[in-house]
């Protein structure tokens, strides 16, 4: 066997595995999105871009698209800011730091379905602790109907997501902080820099690559939000919490319209790819500037 064959032969299992679990489903999804496949009507004919033109004029899709983008933006931003704050605190030495670092990860380690049920009770309109606290503190004078009102439902879901995932951001940012050479901050302090100056001029710029990578992870993950919505609101009230994942689920598995459902998930894939591309470009530029 010629020598050049060997490396390819050794790579073959990896290619096969990735192809089978990543590329094939994507291509199959693309193919299905160009057909009118439905398990109920048992059709499976090629219809070209018909599904896509239908999608562009589908108000439900744009409604879900808007919610998903807003959810992604708001939760990622809040998680990054809160996570950064947590990371800066946990970086400092204090008593029981190890314990606090471990405890901080508990929300993130919890299954989202459990988190969802928990937030269901916390924000319950009648018996929820949140309403009780706000009323007793005199901040509100009537119970807020968190999940039953379209103005607050999505915000409540964002709060639940932030609670759950901010610790994850904090963890990533903490590791980022630890890679910044101590000599730099020490030198700055010697030169008389105060805490804020150290943060703005040294830590933040050097943390930027980690921050962007963590943000990228979070954004891509938040974009797929499903379990919170599924457990807490089912997309309601009045479609105010419908996201692309729940819409795709309803199309694919409730109506069994695999063609149109795949179109929704492909559109989701495209939006996510654009989002990832923008963040990656920004990331590359930042890394170049830092190094």
């Amino acid at each position, binding site marked *: 066997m010629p020598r050049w064959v060997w490396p390819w032969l050794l790579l073959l299992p990896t290619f096969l595995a990735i192809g089978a679990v990543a590329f094939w489903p994507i291509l199959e999804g693309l193919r299905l999105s160009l057909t009118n496949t439905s*398990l*109920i*009507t*048992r059709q499976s004919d090629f219809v070209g871009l018909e599904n896509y033109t239908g999608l562009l004029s589908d108000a*439900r899709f744009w409604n879900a698209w808007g919610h998903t983008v807003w959810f992604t933006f708001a939760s990622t931003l809040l998680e990054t800011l809160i996570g950064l704050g947590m990371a800066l605190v946990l970086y400092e030495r204090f008593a029981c730091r190890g314990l606090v670092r471990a405890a901080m990860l508990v929300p993130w380690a919890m299954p989202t379905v459990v988190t969802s049920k928990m937030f269901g009770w916390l924000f*319950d*309109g*009648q018996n929820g602790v949140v309403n009780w606290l706000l009323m007793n503190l005199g901040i509100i004078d009537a119970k807020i*109907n*968190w*999940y*039953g*009102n*379209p103005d607050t*439902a999505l915000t409540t879901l964002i709060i639940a997501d932030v609670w759950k995932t901010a610790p994850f951001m904090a963890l990533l940012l903490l590791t980022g902080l630890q890679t910044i050479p101590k000599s730099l901050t020490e030198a700055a302090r010697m030169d008389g820099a105060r805490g804020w100056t150290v943060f703005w001029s040294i830590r933040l710029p050097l943390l930027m690559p980690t921050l962007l990578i963590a943000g990228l992870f979070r954004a891509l993950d938040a974009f797929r939000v499903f379990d919170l919505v599924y457990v807490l*609101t*089912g*997309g*309601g*009230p*009045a*479609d*105010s919490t419908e996201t692309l994942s729940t819409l795709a689920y*309803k199309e694919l*598995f*409730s*109506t*069994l*319209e695999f063609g149109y459902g795949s179109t929704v998930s492909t559109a989701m894939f495209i939006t996510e790819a654009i989002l990832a591309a923008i963040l990656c470009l920004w990331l590359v530029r930042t890394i170049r500037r830092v190094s």
Partner: protein
Amino acid sequence: MTFKTPHSGGRPGPAHVTQLDRRAFLSTGAAGLGAAALGLPTRARAAGRKQISFASAAFFGNESFGDLVNSFNESQDRVMVDYIELPPPSSSTEVYQGLVQQLARGNGTPDVFSQDVIWIAGFAAAGWALPLDEFVDAEMTSKYFEGTLSACKWDGKLTALPWFMDTGMMYYRKDLLDQYGEAVPETWAEMARIGKAAMEAGDTEFGFLWQGKQAEVLVCDAVEAIASNSGAILSDDGRSARIGESAAVEAIQFLYDTINEMKISPSDVLSWDEEPSRQPFTAGKSMFLRNWSYVWPIAQDPSVSEIVGKVGAGPLPHFDGGKSASTLGGYQLGLNANTKERDAAWEFMSWMSAPEQQKRIALNFGLGPSRPALFDDAELNEKQPFMATLRPVFTGATPRPVTPEYAKVTLALQSGISKALVNGEVEKEMTALSGQLDKIVG
């Protein structure tokens, strides 16, 4: 959907596995393993018998559907049934997918299956369910509740055999009605008035609780309101929408008004499905509740209920000039159109739907029979007294829209009705919804 079962201590829920069950399970399991190790066919008894399969969502009570299938297998020596257990009815989307995937293969498995009433039209239109008209006559069908029977029909043909059912009903505080000297309200207006009075008297916090979460249950509540005003969601042939008509608009407007005008329902009902609405009621906080039959044993259980002995249940109210309607639920039997053993399959499913088995299901699973005559049965009346009172409720059972496109229709209804209940522009939303439905079913 579970009534009080004799040994269940009054709580609906998962199986109550007895020692006996466990031992039986272990011994059959061991026998199966032994046979497999020896390479013997595990079903030696099946020799010479016709083999068919039966798939059903898994319901539990004092026994399982597997036990029923065993009884059938032991009762005769012509047919041998394999039981395929699907997920429980609480995961009905998964049950639906499982059935569709098997039926779409068209290889005749499962020969017999049980199906939620809302899937019947879709399975029939896809050609998966065999019309049963060659097996049944008017004499036989007259023994079932009319509403259930009409939900089992598609395109004029009977494509499912009624099995067991459940419907929406009204729970009320008997003690408070007695105290006010009021009769059980028959119209929505009376109900609202009494509910308001109970709130003003400080006896309850809410007047009327129902389910407005954007989910299947919202469609059930809406069907009841609309049908009790002589309206409908779809026309009789299922090809056009009627939800834009004034009868339907009035009914949805009433639901909106319970929150915003009469203020007998908290706005939280917009995010509530069955359990969140049940809890305040059994905590004694509401005068009336719309829910399914499963609430009864909970309301009578002193460990979770504040209102033991103070509750009544009956048909839901109606609008002036209308008739009480309750949304029909439950699972009905279907015969796979591709089965190779038609007669054997029919023998099994007619046995399953026979009075003896329906009674056994009522007693051991707490699931309501689809045969009105069973409600006169002395043993059933003694062991399930609440179920026996449900005859008038079941008589008013109203199917949800009968259409093969039900899955799309229900999603559109959930979204449209939820919007109307939130923004109060009922007429506008119902007109828009009507247009959408016309596009789906037209």
